[in-house]
């Protein structure tokens, strides 16, 4: 093994949302940071396929083995990675999406940037189904505010319970079909408001406003949307304090005789060689399951059950967002006028949670994402056209139907809160390793009636929305046997938990500052610390927590405590 003698103040593992934020904050605080990233280099300025038309390639934008959401999508990775398997316990199902590139999933993510609300941190008090977080909204609010100012997002202040407002750029007008959705929502007494996406509509910190090409998932070549790659890492580099090592797959966090971390060993993927880097502080941000895996694999005589796992809760309380989708055909949109309907690469409106749980058979809630419109024709364009009223056919009639039905579909996706449960967890598979001999995670997953009932409510609501718009849904209501159409665990790609934070070291892995209860110089700043989900997407909260933890680290360093 090659040992680098240079000792860094901090080693950050992973360059995505959590890692980018930590690097931004820590380098500005004067720490010398080494960042290990398992993937290769990526720069949206040069690597984005922003304006590529599908007909310019043979695949027309379709799936490729290294890009599961299509050849133009700015995510190298997917549901499986060659040479890096993961396994399942018995017949349970869990899908694990992994990016392998600088910036991680922030290059292609959906940019929905919602704050968790005050209730989301104190569910223990409210319904007792999951513990309170050791911190509250007031602890994290200043970081949300600073994220809004630094990174920027559009949205609107609505003053809705448990849906905190923010500091927003003005929202872009909705598409015509989104106005129709707003009317239908209104009719059903569901609030439908401007979306909150980290896309800027005014210049901000030398980034130009969005030019509405609708290709956010391809990575924005002008950085009008958020990516760790092009928004957080450049200022970190500019301090001169950041060393980024790509193709560096962390294997293990190493510890010294005092039971503190002293560095990270990693595989240099280019050569296959094992290397070690020394650091005074280790910050894990490799994504929730990957960070938990790293801690589990960091076994030593002092930590026989994995690093920071004296509670035995490492890998437990894994959650994902619940999800289901319904799409419908809206006859009034047939044969409508053509114009550029792209807008940003995501919905311009959404429905925050509005329900009253006293009158429902499930706890907590979900939000609704809206989609539809004239999408760029590529591989799979208007697949299943026989599901439209004409029922299929061929020839002149079919050709006319494609024109007529183009842009007539409106869809709704529910994204809801799962309650952490004992049977949804990960552990290390005793028999399987990846291509570098690193033991891999084995997942066990179970939904409970909390989630099934919530998803049934989504299905019923979306069907009613489509009907209110005068439309017809394309599919039958999924049965109870099919879990009412619930997505598989992991499929919504909001995996959280695995190293949850808590006030009690016996039942949690980290404290409220994302610091290990057992190892004072070990921090985790991705989705792993989350004590529970919310009816919101997690990334804005991952970054707020990471920023807050990074400032804590800087403070402790200044006091000489780390």
């Amino acid at each position: 093994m090659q040992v680098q003698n240079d000792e860094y103040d901090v080693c950050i593992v992973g360059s995505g949302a959590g890692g980018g934020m930590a690097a931004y904050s820590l380098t500005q605080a004067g720490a010398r940071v080494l960042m290990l990233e398992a993937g290769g280099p990526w720069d949206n300025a040069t690597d984005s396929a922003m304006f590529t038309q599908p007909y310019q390639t043979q695949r027309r934008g379709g799936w490729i083995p290294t890009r599961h959401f299509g050849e133009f999508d700015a995510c190298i990775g997917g549901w499986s990675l060659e040479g890096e398997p993961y396994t399942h316990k018995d017949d349970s199902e869990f899908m694990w999406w992994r990016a392998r590139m600088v910036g991680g999933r922030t290059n292609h993510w959906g940019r929905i940037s919602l704050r968790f609300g005050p209730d989301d941190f104190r569910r223990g008090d409210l319904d007792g189904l999951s513990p309170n977080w050791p911190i509250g909204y007031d602890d994290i609010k200043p970081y949300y505010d600073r994220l809004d100012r630094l990174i920027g997002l559009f949205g609107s202040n609505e003053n809705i319970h448990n849906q905190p407002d923010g500091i927003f750029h003005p929202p872009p007008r909705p598409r015509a079909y989104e106005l129709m959705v707003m009317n239908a929502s209104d009719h059903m007494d569901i609030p439908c408001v401007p979306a909150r996406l980290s896309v800027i509509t005014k210049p901000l910190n030398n980034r130009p406003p969005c030019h509405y090409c609708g290709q956010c998932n391809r990575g924005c070549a002008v950085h009008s949307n958020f990516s760790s790659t092009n928004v957080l890492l450049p200022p970190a580099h500019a301090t001169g304090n950041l060393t980024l090592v790509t193709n560096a797959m962390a294997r293990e966090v190493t510890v010294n005789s005092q039971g503190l971390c002293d560095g990270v060993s990693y595989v240099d993927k280019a050569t296959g060689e094992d290397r070690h880097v020394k650091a005074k502080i280790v910050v894990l941000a490799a994504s929730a399951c990957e960070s938990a895996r790293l801690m589990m694999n960091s076994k030593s005589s002092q930590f026989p059950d994995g690093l920071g796992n004296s509670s035995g809760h490492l890998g437990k309380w894994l959650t994902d967002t619940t999800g289901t989708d319904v799409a419908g055909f809206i006859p009034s949109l047939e044969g409508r006028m053509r114009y550029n309907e792209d807008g940003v690469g995501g919905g311009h409106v959404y429905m925050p949670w509005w329900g009253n749980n006293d009158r429902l058979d499930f706890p907590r809630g979900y939000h609704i994402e809206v989609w539809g419109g004239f999408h760029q024709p590529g591989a799979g364009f208007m697949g299943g056209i026989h599901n439209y009223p004409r029922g299929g056919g061929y020839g002149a009639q079919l050709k006319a139907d494609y024109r007529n039905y183009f842009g007539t579909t409106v869809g709704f996706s529910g994204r809801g809160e799962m309650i952490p449960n004992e049977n949804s967890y990960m552990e290390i598979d005793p028999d399987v390793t990846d291509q570098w001999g690193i033991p891999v995670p084995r997942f066990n997953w179970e939904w409970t009636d909390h989630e099934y009932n919530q998803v049934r409510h989504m299905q019923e609501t979306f069907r009613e929305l489509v009907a209110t718009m005068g439309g017809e849904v394309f599919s039958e209501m999924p049965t109870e046997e099919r879990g009412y159409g619930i997505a598989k665990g992991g499929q919504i790609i909001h995996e959280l938990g695995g190293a949850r934070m808590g006030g009690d070291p016996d039942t949690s892995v980290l404290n409220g500052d994302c610091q290990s209860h057992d190892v004072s110089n070990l921090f985790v700043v991705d989705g792993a610390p989350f004590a529970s989900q919310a009816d919101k997407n997690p990334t804005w909260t991952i970054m707020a927590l990471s920023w807050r933890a990074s400032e804590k680290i800087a403070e402790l360093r200044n006091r000489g405590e780390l």
Partner: protein
Amino acid sequence: MSSDKKTELSRRDALKAMGAGAFGLSAAYGVTPSALEKFEKMLREGRYVARFFTEAEMAALRVLADMVIPADDVSGSATDAGTVEYADFVLSISDANTQEAWRDGLVWLDSECSRRFNKDLFVSCSDEERASILDDIAWPNRATDEFIERANWFNRVRDLIGSGFFSSQIGAADVGYIGNVFNPRWQGAPPDALRALGVSYEEWDAKYGDLQ
């Protein structure tokens, strides 16, 4: 062609406006520009060599594809847009089950021609004869038990030929897609489009402004 020029122009304008570097196709997208150029040249010169289908299957597919998407006064046919070659490419990278299903369907078409019309091949049937077969399989909800499996197969054919045609340059222009361009002054839908749908920005603009 003219729509292509327009796109090219606005792309260049956008690049200039943004002062960004040159992006576009790279090897990482699976096809290098030169591979695509070679492919297009072969198409133009009519010497495409199929990767998956046999020559006989390609011939049957050409006939079938133009029955699915024929030329009309708006645009050309499936074969005009290179759709059969696209389908061949897609099948060449598809899983074995999908490949098998496509082959099987084409074999069935020929056998149906011999059963019904005493002709060996789909391609040797008349237009009316071919249409009478498609009529039995092109509407899955109406298909009788005898044809339901074939109707499922035809769904695949329709989807691949249809998406292949409309994702071509000819097809995208036909269906009227005019996006993925530099469009900095987003205004939402034009007034006529809103009027036709009975919606308006009045309330939105009053609450949130119109960005301009």
